[in-house]
């Protein structure tokens, strides 16, 4: 399976449909495998009938299953363990308990998980998952039977015939999960029930309803990667990128001794950050939903002015709306973290898909010369560090920082070693009280070394001042339209950002020192690029990887690193935005480009293929 949607990181996938023998799992599985084949997948299937011909309904021995293994190539077996299990009743869950991959997706019909059903499958508690020790699976619990009944009301079927369509609801849901268009399945159903048009229509309706249910609820399915093979001793938890981002912001506020404020507006796939922080009232966080994205950032700008560590979270279209206000934060020189969880664009685009297409917007999407800091997280857990960095740089350098993550990181989860905040650096904003200049303090007086203006917060005695969006005089901080002053301020604002290069780590090169090819990446593609590099090492190729977390400003050693290798390829999920940015910054840098804009993570095997070709070119 080259491309699939909700189960994003896998190139091969095993799906198992399982239920009572009356539940029609064989038909379901057959249709699914057939339509996958039609879509060009290689498949291998394994129908698994119950041993007893007429086992009691709902019993363990009555479970019927159908397993499909599908992928883009080299599918030789029906697979060992399932990535996705459809369990129509508790018995189906129980018999498959040992055949699930970690974080497998389990779809259940809650209507068939009632007390009586659990009894039939010999469960003794009312929580079958707990009882089976199934703690690391992702459950999609849907009231399938009742939704099917509701959905088919218009057909006037008797109850039993209606409920019999529930397998098609389940199939619809799985089709949604794998982005399978329904047309072929409908076609097959029409053929199968050619003589019973009502039944055909009812099945088709149930199929569509199941698909829509998945579509409308998204059913919170995430992806899983093991980021590091060796686990250091310590306490761990599972965390996805959005949660890690939220925690990173909390950590930064803690280290700075400030309150955290988040002004936000829901938008896929960033909403979780707002939701997680809204729940963190225990930690004193003020995370609030406002009327739109502009209010989200503007309340944050207000909170920053009032002395909080202020952040706002959004995705692409929301970042576009925030453009004007980011410019205000730039000229007012106040600390602000703007988190953009990138999704497929342009416009509303593909809201649930992942891309890296907002980089140019983050760098340039404002009127005037309006430089900001841009950082990108590379893994779900790195979102924590990246968010911490964002808070630190914003506060210590009095600037907006745009933190780019993406849908893939946001929903992807990893085992995460709980950080000990003692290991993290202090965050020390420069307050106006530290000003030591000869002339009386003014709002835009700067620390000579960092060019950072001193921060005065309402309530501080002796530092009342006015700031705003109009250009200010370098010395007096009053409004100024003087041309020389404007040039000086434009230059200073840029220099302030450029100087941050002194306060961030250099970019590291992984892999071969004397590589024949340097892979350059940034942000959420780290895992795939790294895996590609490692695979190539196994194939005996000399390759290295320079993966960027700090984008504006670039680490100090960037030019040196990039110009050192004969062949360089910049790989990104857009049309070359980072490559273009690097070329505009580094004379003589003419890399190859590998670009995919499919709303999907890279496919490691394709990367290896392409990079190997480049090596040979």
């Amino acid at each position: 399976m080259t491309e699939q949607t909700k189960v994003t990181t896998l190139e091969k996938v095993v799906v198992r449909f399982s239920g009572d023998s009356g539940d029609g799992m064989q038909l379901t599985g057959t249709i699914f495998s057939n339509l996958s084949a039609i879509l060009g997948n290689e498949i291998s299937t394994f129908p698994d009938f119950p041993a007893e011909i007429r086992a009691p309904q709902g019993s363990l021995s009555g479970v019927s299953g159908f397993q499909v293994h599908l992928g883009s190539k080299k599918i030789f077996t029906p697979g060992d363990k399932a990535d996705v299990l459809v369990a129509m009743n508790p018995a189906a869950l129980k018999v498959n308990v040992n055949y699930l991959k970690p974080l497998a997706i389990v779809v259940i019909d809650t209507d068939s998980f009632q007390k009586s059903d659990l009894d039939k499958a010999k469960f003794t508690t009312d929580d079958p998952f707990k009882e089976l020790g199934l703690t690391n699976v992702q459950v999609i619990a849907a009231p399938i039977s009742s939704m099917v009944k509701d959905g088919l009301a218009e057909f006037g079927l008797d109850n039993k015939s209606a409920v019999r369509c529930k397998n098609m609801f389940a199939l619809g849901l799985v089709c949604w999960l794998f982005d399978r268009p329904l047309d072929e399945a409908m076609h097959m159903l029409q053929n199968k029930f050619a003589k019973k048009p009502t039944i055909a229509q009812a099945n088709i309706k149930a199929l569509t309803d199941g698909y829509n249910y998945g579509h409308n609820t998204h059913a919170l399915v995430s992806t899983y990667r093991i980021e590091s093979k060796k686990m250091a001793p310590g306490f761990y938890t599972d965390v996805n990128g959005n949660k890690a981002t939220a925690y990173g912001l909390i950590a930064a506020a803690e280290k700075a001794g400030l309150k955290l404020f988040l002004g936000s507006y829901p938008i896929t796939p960033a909403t979780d950050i707002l939701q997680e922080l809204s729940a963190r009232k225990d930690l004193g966080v003020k995370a609030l939903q406002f009327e739109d994205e502009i209010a989200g950032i503007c309340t944050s700008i207000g909170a920053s002015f009032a002395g909080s560590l202020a952040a706002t979270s959004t995705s692409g279209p929301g970042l576009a709306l925030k453009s004007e206000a980011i410019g205000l934060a730039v000229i007012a020189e106040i600390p602000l973290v703007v988190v953009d969880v990138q999704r497929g664009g342009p416009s509303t685009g593909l809201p649930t898909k992942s891309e890296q297409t907002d980089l140019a917007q983050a760098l340039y999407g404002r009127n005037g010369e309006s430089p900001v800091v841009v950082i990108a997280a590379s893994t779900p857990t790195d979102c924590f560090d990246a968010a911490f960095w964002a808070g630190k740089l914003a506060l210590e350098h009095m600037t907006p920082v745009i933190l780019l993550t993406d849908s893939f990181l946001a929903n992807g989860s990893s085992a995460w070693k709980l950080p000990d905040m003692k290991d993290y650096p202090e965050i020390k904003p420069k307050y106006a009280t530290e000003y030591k200049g000869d002339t009386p303090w003014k709002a835009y007086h700067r620390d000579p070394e960092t060019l950072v203006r001193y921060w005065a917060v309402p309530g501080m005695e002796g530092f009342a001042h006015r700031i705003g969006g109009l250009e200010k005089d370098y010395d007096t901080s009053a409004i100024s339209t003087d041309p020389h002053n404007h040039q000086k301020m434009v230059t200073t604002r840029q220099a302030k950002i450029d100087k941050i290069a002194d306060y961030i780590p250099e970019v590291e090169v992984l892999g071969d020192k004397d590589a024949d090819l340097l892979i350059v990446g940034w942000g959420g593609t780290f895992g795939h690029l790294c895996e590609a590099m490692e695979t190539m090492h196994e194939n005996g190729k000399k390759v290295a990887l320079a993966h960027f977390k700090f984008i504006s400003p670039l680490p100090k050693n960037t030019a040196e690193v990039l110009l050192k290798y004969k062949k360089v390829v910049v790989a990104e999920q857009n049309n070359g935005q980072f490559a273009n940015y690097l070329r505009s910054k580094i004379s003589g840098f003419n890399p190859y480009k590998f670009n995919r804009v499919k709303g999907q993570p890279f496919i490691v095997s394709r990367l290896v293929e392409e990079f190997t070709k480049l090596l040979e070119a």
Partner: protein
Amino acid sequence: MEQELKYQPKDYKSDQYVRWCPGCGDHAVLNCVHKAMAELNVDPKDIAVISGIGCSSRLPYYMNSYGFHTIHGRGAAIATGVKTANPALNVWLMTGDGDCLAIGGNHFIHAVRRNIDLNIVLFNNKIYGLTKGQYSPTTDRGFVTKSSPYGTVEEPFIPAELTFGARGNFFARVIDVDLKNTTDILTASARHKGASVVEVLVNCVIFNDGIHKQITDKEFRPDRTIFLRHGEKMLFGKENEKGLVLDGLKLKVVTIGQDGYTLDDILVHDAHTEDATMHMMLGMMGGDLPLALGVIRDVDAPCYDQEVEKQILEVQAKKPHRTLNEFLMSGEIWEVK
């Protein structure tokens, strides 16, 4: 409440030259703001004056407090952030009819609905002053401006009506030329806990000179306006000889001693009643009825900034952890040794 008044109006004045045109109504309002603040006896360091963009929005520069001249229309949102982040501050929003009701309309109605404790001063000159004379959402239908060379074809907002439509709990209307009342009412608006909207009818001498003349001129004022005071009879006219009575669902002007009306018949203003029906009727007066000035509505209700704080305290009372590490350790974790 006897309290030593420590501050003079001049303590709130900054050293910047005031850049409004000679004769602009904004000058008067600025003076009243300075006086109201002295009256409120609040330390300039605890005041944050926020504005959007417009002539009126330049006001923060003329204050000796903390101030933020932000971007067009977003003052309400930014002020909301300031107040929510630090409810101890005394937060003012200075905004024009364009800034507040055109581009800023959404933030305005939401700030009002949330009842965040802001003192919103709406400078209504029925024109875009700063951009030199285009019509605003309060410009009268048919009015000719630079962007409506043949007259507008839009019904204007009535700020009182929109405020009430957005669940507003404090609304007052004043005129630039009446310094005494403007000062008093700005003071009252600041004392009100929650979003208070004060519409000031100001004159733009350059681009809309005399737009409020029919109301604000000394000769017209007694007959064309009524100054409402909570608990007092709704009387107006040169000799307070006229008053308002209710006629079904409509307000009516009567003259005391005529048609059998006596002082007893005249309505008493109740700014504090929760039901907004009468306030809406008063706020909508004009035309045959006198324009209502003064505090039209002043009702207590929960403030957003306070409720946010309260909820945090409630949650914290139930949960022991205060640091990220404590919180994470309280979750679903496992150990690798």
